[in-house]
């Protein structure tokens, strides 16, 4: 942890070392995994602490909203491969751990987090990962934290990998099989299928995008508004539920309601339970939430 950052120390002491506790982010996904169950709610530090365009990294308080971060980064032509509803925070998006709709281009959310400054269940501050874009020093705690719903540690501040904003991007849609669209394009940012129509997001250099638009026009795709997705999520099982939209290649279905708990083997559940107990023996971090209660 960088010495002397008062906000991190304040966060640590707010979390303390006893009593059920959780971080409240933008509360856009507050019920996920079960809800807070009356745990004391704390807030993570807010604000951009170090933006290094030449390193393509940014250090930011976990309580910062994705919108504020995106705004600052855009000034430098940069972005982070994260996504969430209006009001959601960096820490919340990481804790929920759902990759951005543009994941085919920007990568999985797990690959965005380079370093996390956290407070553990014992109230002690620790750092996971490191500041550089490449790092295999010790165990990959960052990946374990992404998607853990704040049950292993509370995140105060992070270093994220940034990437250049694409020069050009355009949504197209048409009544075509998604496989044909994939064949006709190179690394589209997103491919969605509602059972009849395929929507595709193309990104890149203008002339390259134009070229793909032309190819896809021959298949019957035309420029379209970005699709509006239902708020729930489920895992693709080969069948689309009513009103569901498949994120092709991601195994995720955007649907009206969240689907029920996933099927997970007992061996994995045991390992996960050991992990949670190892990080939080007294069960004080987000006691009401279970990351295994949601399918996608």
């Amino acid at each position, binding site marked *: *942890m960088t010495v002397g950052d008062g906000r991190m120390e304040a966060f640590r002491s707010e979390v303390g070392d006893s009593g059920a506790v959780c971080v409240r982010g933008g509360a856009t996904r507050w019920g996920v995994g079960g809800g807070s169950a009356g745990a004391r709610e704390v807030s993570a530090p807010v604000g951009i602490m170090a933006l*290094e365009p*030449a*390193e*393509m990294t940014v250090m930011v308080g976990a309580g910062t909203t994705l919108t504020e971060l995106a705004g600052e980064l855009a000034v*430098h*032509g*940069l972005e982070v491969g994260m996504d969430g509803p209006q009001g959601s925070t960096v820490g919340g998006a990481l804790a929920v*751990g759902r*990759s951005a709709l543009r994941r085919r281009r920007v*990568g999985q*959310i*797990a*690959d965005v987090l380079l370093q996390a400054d956290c407070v*553990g269940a014992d109230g*002690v*501050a*620790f*750092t*996971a990962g*490191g*500041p*550089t*874009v*490449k*790092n*295999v*020093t*010790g*165990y*990959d*705690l960052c*990946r*374990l934290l992404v*998607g853990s719903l704040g049950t292993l540690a509370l995140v105060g501040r992070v270093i994220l990998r940034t990437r*250049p904003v694409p020069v050009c991007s355009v949504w197209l849609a048409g009544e075509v099989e998604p496989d044909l669209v994939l064949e006709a394009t*190179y690394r589209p940012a997103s491919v969605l299928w509602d059972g009849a129509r395929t929507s595709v997001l193309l990104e*890149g*250099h203008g*002339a*390259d995008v134009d*070229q793909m638009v032309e190819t896809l026009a021959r298949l019957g795709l035309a420029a379209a508004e970005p699709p509006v997705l239902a708020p729930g999520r489920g*895992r693709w099982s080969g069948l689309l539920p009513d009103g569901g939209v498949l994120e092709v*290649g*991601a*195994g*995720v279905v955007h649907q009206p309601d969240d689907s029920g708990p*996933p099927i*997970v083997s007992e*061996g*994995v559940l045991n*390992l*996960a339970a*050991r*992990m*949670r107990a*190892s*990080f939080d023996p007294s069960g004080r971090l987000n006691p009401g939430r279970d990351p*295994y209660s949601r399918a*996608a």
Partner: protein
Amino acid sequence: MSDLVAALDPERVQVGDVARRLYSRDASVLRGGRAGVICFPVTTAEVSACVVAAVAHGRDFVVRGAGTGLAGGAVPCDEPVMIVLTRMDRILEVDESRRLAWVEPGVVNLDLSRHLGGTGLHFAPDPSSQQSCTIGGNVANNSGGPHCLLYGVTSAHVLAVEVVLPDGEVVVLGNEEGDSVGYDLRGAFVGGEGTLGIATRICVRLTEDPPEVATLLLDFMSVGAAAETVSAIIAAGMIPAALEMMDQRVVEAVEPFVNAGYPTDAAAVLIVELDGQPAGVADEIMRIGELASTHGARSVRVAADEGERERIWKGRKSAFGAIAVIKPDYYLNDTVIPRTKLAEVVERIYEIVEEQDLIVMNVFHAGDGNLHPLLLFDAREEGVMERVLAAGEEIVRVSVAAGGVLSGEHGIGLEKKRFMSLQFSPADLEVQSRLRAAFDPDGRANPAKVLPSGASCGHVTSLGRLPEGTWV
């Protein structure tokens, strides 16, 4: 031993001196490892049986792929059961439409890429050792390679892993598609260096071959100018597919072998690879050419055809072979620093090496700040290993002081365990040990590695410190 013979074919359980010596070391400079019984399982059930037998007899176990690791990850301490996976080398399934493949851990990295030839797909992690290292080893070390700059290191390409846990239980971590369900235990396992369990089947992500590839060779009269060009490219918002630097000594050593037309009088050259679609690639060639000129590049050469591309890359990839002409032994370090500090830290490395009266060659993944100073020496020379290790330690210290980390791709193993506290506080390390304990509560899987708090391995020393001829 008898349990192991019962579980495996007797021919696949070895205890002879030759085998034990062979499996006592890897590609690091560490010597003096002590292997116990060596097993060559061919199925997940056999791997599990080996683990159960080892633990039942109070033994540790160490898993090994091809033994090309550079941090001593596969070096055995105190006669553990050695589980060697080179015979689990089948490519089980390639699903072209879903762009994934299931492989056994002993599949050699390059064999998978060869197998995929003609499909338009490839496995992106391309360590320089790809002709021999295994995918299981890549997963365990979260290995990188030149093209990981754009595409990410191994973890970004592993969708799921079947793992034999240290109690013999078999679990599948991760899934073929999408984000993790519950904790990302797959992500936690990757990079575990054989201390969290044994990968027995791996589902890897396959990457589309780019329609357009351009390889550039830039040459500079100073290492500083080359380093500043690297920083400038990144700062300009470009992420090439690969961005490698070779200093003059490397260029001089490899040019006679490959005749790539490298300028042997240049202080440093950069190999820049751009890939993607034609217009984007053409645009980046132009922008990089301009940046290079403003930063003092003498020339910018764009490979005209596939043959020229291959020659440029061949030089980079044969660097390790070429050094043997200069000195018989080498110590390859691996640290990462912020990209804006490249010029400064590389200069400092030359000074450190000079102070220790050694020879260094720098050939590294400049685009992500991943330094690979290669110290050359002759282990027969009295006291040379002390100087090599002193230089290595100073390089690690300088890297961490510059805001960097201990390792970018080779891992910690035994080699860098003692440096962990340079980068991490006791609290940081305590949390890492919690992750490990959840996988391996009894500390049976490769216990002497990674964390300084783990078991020690007093009988392992570095090359050159042992009486001559002790180990081959």
